[in-house]
Each structure stands twice: as C-alpha cells, then as structure tokens.
C-alpha cells in the first residue's frame, strides 16, 4: 500500500474577536491508497477544519493555515495558491468531498445534470453528450432509480438521502484518489445512513480510492474504517487500527467515548452509560496543558505541570497523547 496523503503538523488558526482559536493544532495523519480512515471527535474539535485545510477551503480571513505540510502524492499542496489553477485541478478530480448537509449542498437552481456534468467538463474535458451519458451512469451507480429521467430534475425534487447519493456520484465522478466525507450521514435518518455507508464503501472498493470519514458517531466508523484517529480540541489524541481502538483504547478520552455509547446485546438496565463529565473546552486562548485534563478521571500531577504530551507508541501502529499508562493501572 502506498501513501496517498501525508499530513504533518497541520495548524489552522482562526482570528476571532474574542481571541485566537487553534482549531487544528498540530494535526498529523496519513492515508494509504484504498484505505478507509475514520476521523472521530465531538462537535467543534477541529475535524472539519482539518480536512477543509487539507483541501485549502478554509475561509481566509478569519482562518489561516499557519504551519504544516500536506503531501498529496508526494507534492506539498499547501504551497499551492488556495484558488490557483494547480489546487483547482486537484479539487474535484483527485480529491473530493462529500458534505454533511445534502439539503443545502446542491445548487437549488441548477438541474442535477448540470451539476454533475459540470465536474466532468471541468476536469475530464468531456463534451456535453459524453458528460451526460457518464452522469447518468454515475447516478445509476449510486442507486438513483430512473436515472435517465431524474437527471433533469432539480435538487428540490430529490429527498435528502437521494441528494446525498447525488453528492456521492459527484464525489466519485472523476475517479478521485481520496474522498473526504464530512459527517456524510448525520443529516439523514438511520436506515438511510446504513444504505449510504454501504454504498460508499462499495464504490470506494470498486474504484480503489481512499476514504476519510469524519464523524462524531463511533458506530459509523467501527464497521467501516480500517484505522481511526480520535481528535480532541484540535489535536489527535489517539490513533490506531480500528480493532485496537475499539478493543484496547488507551487514551482516557477514547475510553470515555466508548463508555458513553450503548451496546447491543447488553441486557437493558444492567449497565448504566457512563458519560464524560464536563464540557469540551472553549478553544479560545487555551492553556498549554492537556485540554482533556479538566475532565479526565486518570489525571496525575504531571498533567497539570507539563504541556500537552506528544504522541507516543503504545502498540502496533497505536499511538496516544497521554502521560498516564492506563493499562498498567
């Protein structure tokens, strides 16, 4: 497996009226070809900012990518102009994105046909007829019934789930190297969620592309992701293969997350869900110490004296950012 995307020490800060927000503060992650990655964390922990930074879609100002490298197929794409020709040639063709809100991610005044063929004409230089043929084929691939006729409909004539299928069709249109799915199933109901996830997984395998699923829903990634990165307050706090993260979580935050998810098969009422106490920190002007420390059950004196620890290896490909060795406890 070859490395497709190598993000190192990515820092994206936002300058707000209240102070500096370090939305992504030294995030590093790697994606191999054909791999499915889960980027997990609660709302506001910097997951979306991280992938928007990789695609250079951060609104500047107020945002700014202050440090880091994003090696995509060996090229540092952070060096490209955010809206320059080089970056535009990558976006939509080699690197695509599926957004959270299918209801608002499609342009309401253009037909589905226009919106899909747009990408094909933009990147693959297809003529109108060929692009239309391909668009219909794509819609069929994502399971839109009666694609030949539906293609001339407007987004408002599609349901949420169907629109998300269109978004998926647009994301795979140019056989990208990597797809970022930003909470792709959050806005649709649970049965549709499962269908969409299966569909995405199937397509990703078929065109052998990598997929990064950004989600706050552990259930979503448990089934599909091969490796998982857990984010908290703008940093990766734990990363590792899926089985490791779910089987032997090492970081107190990950452990807390897993305890707060109900499990199937457990007899009702026998075990109470354990929430993580407290609230996620305000990202404005954060202290240098571990951001999870105030909520952490396992904190030790060292946590309060020393800065946020670097990632350290605790198993095969398994890293955590914590001073405490919970397994030893």
């Amino acid at each position: 497996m070859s490395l497709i995307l190598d993000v190192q020490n990515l820092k994206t800060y936002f300058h707000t009226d209240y102070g500096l927000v370090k939305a992504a503060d030294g995030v590093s992650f790697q994606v191999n070809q054909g791999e499915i990655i889960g980027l997990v964390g609660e709302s506001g922990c910097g997951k979306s900012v991280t992938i928007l930074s990789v695609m250079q879609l951060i609104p500047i100002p107020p945002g700014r990518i202050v440090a880091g490298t994003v090696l995509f197929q060996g090229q540092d794409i952070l060096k490209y102009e955010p809206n320059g020709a080089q970056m535009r040639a990558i976006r939509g063709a080699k690197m695509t994105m599926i957004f959270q809100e299918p209801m608002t991610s499609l342009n309401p005044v253009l037909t589905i046909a226009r919106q899909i063929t747009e990408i094909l004409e933009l990147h693959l230089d297809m003529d109108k007829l060929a692009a239309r043929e391909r668009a219909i084929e794509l819609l069929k691939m994502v399971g839109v019934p009666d694609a030949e006729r539906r293609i001339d409909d407007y987004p408002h004539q599609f349901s949420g789930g169907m629109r998300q299928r269109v978004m998926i069709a647009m994301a795979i249109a140019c056989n990208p190297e990597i797809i970022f799915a930003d909470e792709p199933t959050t806005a649709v109901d649970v049965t549709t969620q499962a269908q969409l996830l299966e569909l995405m997984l199937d397509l990703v395998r078929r065109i052998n592309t990598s997929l990064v699923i950004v989600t706050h829903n552990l259930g979503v990634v448990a089934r599909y992701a091969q490796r998982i990165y857990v984010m908290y307050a703008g940093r990766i706090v734990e990363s590792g293969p899926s089985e490791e993260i779910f089987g032997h979580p090492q970081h107190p935050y990950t452990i807390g997350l897993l305890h707060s998810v109900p499990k199937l098969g457990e007899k009702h009422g026998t075990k109470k869900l354990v929430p993580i106490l407290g609230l996620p920190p305000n990202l404005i002007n954060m202290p240098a110490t571990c951001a999870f420390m105030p909520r952490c059950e396992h904190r030790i004196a060292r946590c309060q004296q020393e800065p946020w620890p670097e990632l350290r290896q605790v198993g095969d490909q398994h890293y955590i950012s914590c001073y405490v060795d919970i397994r030893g406890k």
Partner: protein
Amino acid sequence: MADKPESAAPAIDAAGITAAPPHHSEWRRIARVYFSRKLYLIGFILVVLIFVVAIFAPLLTPYNPIKTDLTSIVREPSAAHWLGTDQLGRDILCRIIYGTRTSLLIGFSAVFSSAAIGMLMGLTAAHFGGWVFALIMRITDALMALPGIILVLLIAGLVGGGIGVVIFALGFGGIAGMCRMMCGLALSVKQNDYVMAGRSIGMSNWRIMLTQIFPNAFPPLMVGITMGIGGVVLGEAGLSFLGIGVEAPTPSWGGMVFDGQPYLLDNPLLSLAPGVAIMILVFGFNMVGDGIRDAVDPRLRGVL
C-alpha cells in the same frame, strides 16, 4: 417536500412504484405558475400591449405626434381627437402612443445598463470580500452621496439634454442601488454549502460567481429591475419638467404631464392621460416582475 421512502434498488418496477413523477418541461411549469395568477396575467397582457403599441405606433393613429396645429389648441375630447389636443394642437392620444417608444427606450436602456454594471460590482464585492469589498462599497457610497438630480443637471449643463443624457443620468443613478442589493443578496447566498461545494469540485472564482451565486441571488433582483423601469420612466418625467429631459418635440409622457399642468383646471386630461399611461406601464412591469420571481424561484416551487 415529503421525503419519499428511500428504496435503494430500482428493482420494484411493478405497478409503477418506482416510476418517476410525471415529467414536466421546466418552461411549461414556469408558464403555468405564472399564468395561474390573474394579476400576473393582467400585468403580462399590459406589458405586451405596451410593446405592441410601441412597435405599431404609426398604424394606430392617423396623426403626427410632432406636427403642431395652432388652429385647434387645448381641445376637449372629440370624435377626431379621442383625448383632445394639447397646447400646440397635437393629438394627445397620438403623443401618448408615440411616447410609449420613448418610455420603453429610456426605461430599458437605463435599467439594463445600470443593472448589468451594478450587479457585476455587487457580485464581485460580495464574492471576494476584503479590500475588494471595501473599495467597491466606498465607490457605491460615493455614488449614493451624489444627489441624482444635481448630477443630471451637471451632466446636462456640460453636454446638453437629450435622450442619451437622460439614459446615462438615470442609469448612472441606479448603479449604486443595484450594487447594494446584489451585494447583500450575494453575501447571504455565499454562506450556502453549495458555494463551498462548488469550490470543492475545483470551480474558479468566476464560475462560482456566475453559476453558484448569481442565479440564486438574481430572482429577488428581478423585481428591482422591473420596478426600476417604472422608476426610470418617472425619473424621466421629472427631468423633462426641469427642461433637461427628452428634447421638446419628441413625445414623452413625463413631459406631457408637466406640459399640461397650466391647464389642469380647464382640461385635466392633458396631464391625466399621460399620467395614467405611466401608471399602467409601472403597474404592468411590477406585476410581471413579481410573477417571474414567483415562477422561476425554485425555492418557492410547490408553495405557490
């Protein structure tokens, strides 16, 4: 918008369960929504009539709108002159008919040119933000600070009156408003996910502005544009009164209203008739504007 149950496979083809809803041509749908409202239909008919009158003016009246006849000035309506004659003995109906041409010419050229320039400025300002926004908005502020009438007087004083100057002056005065409206609408449209989605598929700034932002911001502006036509016709009337509007013999409704002023008590038709003509034109265009907006705006689909 009821969500249809999500059936992944188009497999259930029996009994038309997956048959798509009956397919309508988009234009036919727009026409249907538009013409289903009586008021819009009336507006449409009025506008069509105004155009017909403007195009076929010579066929509709036996008189010449410019030729004076001092033997029959300020006459009451009669069989020969349905709306009477003015202070120079010209047939009023005839002048109203020919005045349609002047009004449409001025209305359309002034509004379309100011809309094109203003919208481009507003779109650019909203899309790029930052110093581009600041610069364009300050230019707009400066334009707004110039009182329209004084600006026109200045221009007219420098180059003289005439249709060209009226169009330029009224069009120039409309740029700031158009720019502001477009900018405001574009700023809110810009927040939509589909603009970010457009960026994420590698669209250039121009493409985003023209395909993602403009078509979504445009429908409400359509009302502004059509109302602007009425406004410009009114503005032209005001300028004609000040003597810097359309030059004297050319029939213009505004000029006629003010020409008739001295005879308001004796023969109110002199002012009233062209006034009503202005009113009909403004009403017609406003209705058409509202109707088009309702019909083409996809966000209102199914609501009306």
